């Protein structure tokens, strides 16, 4: 998998990944509250994107969903009980998906499920080794979202600007320009993140998804979920420091090998 050739993950990257994932869950809770999802479950509002065949649950069940979501968000933000928080997050998002299907809920579910895979590996790998193949899977997910989003947009005539015109009432030429800009930005972000310009790519993602969320406040959870995935591409230290660090580590290991051949390699805790 070509993304596994990127710089190895380090503890700080993972901490930021979990924090941003926690913010995404908190944003889901906030947007649910702000947009009146409670009133959907009391029957006042139309059950938006409710899947047919699954009964709409009561507001008490919604309270359980929101409590699980809040606890998962708190756990991920604080780094306490990560494993339990991830499982609780999966439960909360599954409950939410059963009531209202949305792409951002699917994305959150995928990221949470992929993140829990780490805890299914042996304890030594799960707790000590930050570089686990499930995070490569999450990096791939970022490429998949951008790649298929672009493909779907191109296939459905997004470049005409009609969708932006209908959504925001912008003028024809401005809408066309914005549509082109969105597609270029969606192509640029993953390329930058994977081509040695990770920090630039991350800031570009912040700018792009910040704009999306400002234009459509319901998209804050999606934006933070994308940033959580993007942060996995960004090395914990600048590249120069990384090279210097590895050089120093090599020198140290050479010294260590000459003095104590059987010295075990130390691994950073996450």
């Amino acid at each position: 998998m070509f993304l596994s050739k990127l710089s190895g993950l380090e503890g700080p990257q993972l901490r930021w990944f979990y924090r941003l994932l926690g913010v995404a869950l908190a944003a889901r809770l906030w947007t649910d509250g702000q947009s009146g999802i409670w009133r959907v479950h009391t029957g006042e509002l139309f059950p938006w994107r409710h899947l047919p065949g699954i009964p709409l649950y009561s507001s008490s069940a919604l309270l359980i969903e929101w409590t699980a979501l809040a606890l998962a968000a708190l756990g991920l933000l604080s780094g306490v009980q990560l494993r339990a928080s991830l499982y609780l997050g999966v439960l909360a998002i599954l409950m939410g998906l059963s009531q209202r299907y949305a792409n951002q809920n699917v994305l959150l579910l995928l990221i949470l499920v992929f993140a829990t895979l780490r805890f299914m590996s042996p304890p030594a790998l799960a707790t000590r080794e930050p570089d686990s193949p499930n995070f490569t899977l999450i990096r791939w997910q970022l490429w998949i979202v951008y790649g298929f989003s672009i493909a779907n947009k191109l296939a459905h005539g997004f470049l005409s600007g009609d969708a932006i015109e209908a959504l925001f009432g912008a003028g024809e030429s401005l809408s066309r320009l914005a549509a082109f800009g969105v597609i270029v930005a969606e192509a640029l972000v993953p390329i930058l993140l994977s081509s040695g310009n990770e920090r630039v790519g991350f800031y570009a993602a912040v700018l792009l998804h910040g704009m999306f969320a400002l234009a459509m406040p319901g998209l804050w959870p999606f934006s933070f979920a994308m940033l959580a995935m993007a942060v996995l591409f960004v090395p914990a230290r600048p590249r120069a420091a990384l090279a210097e660090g590895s050089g120093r580590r090599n020198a140290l290991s050479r010294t260590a090998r000459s003095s104590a051949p059987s010295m075990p390699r130390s691994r950073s805790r996450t």
Partner: protein
Amino acid sequence: MTPARLRSVCRALLVLNLAYCTAALFLDELPGWKMFESVELLDYVLEDVDGHVLDVHDALPASAHLTDAAQLRRVVTFICEHHEGPLWFEGTRGGHGEWLQSGACRPHVPL
């Protein structure tokens, strides 16, 4: 799960993921990473018997965005079912309208 097994599971999930997304790209009915790639311009009028205009967005969560006529029809049906008295629904581009009332709330006019 051994590290080798975990790697295989991750590879399998990636292949499934890519296969599903490719299928969703060609099949409109399948949900995929289709984020506002196509939004219909919906021009309509919804009024009660006294001529008061009703806004469908008042019956929707604030984060909802209507993107096609089928969604609009479902929301109008919901409003009609929760409204006392008949409603007039008209697709302004089609120029056709119809009265909706309890028992016959689903609009059929072209939009």
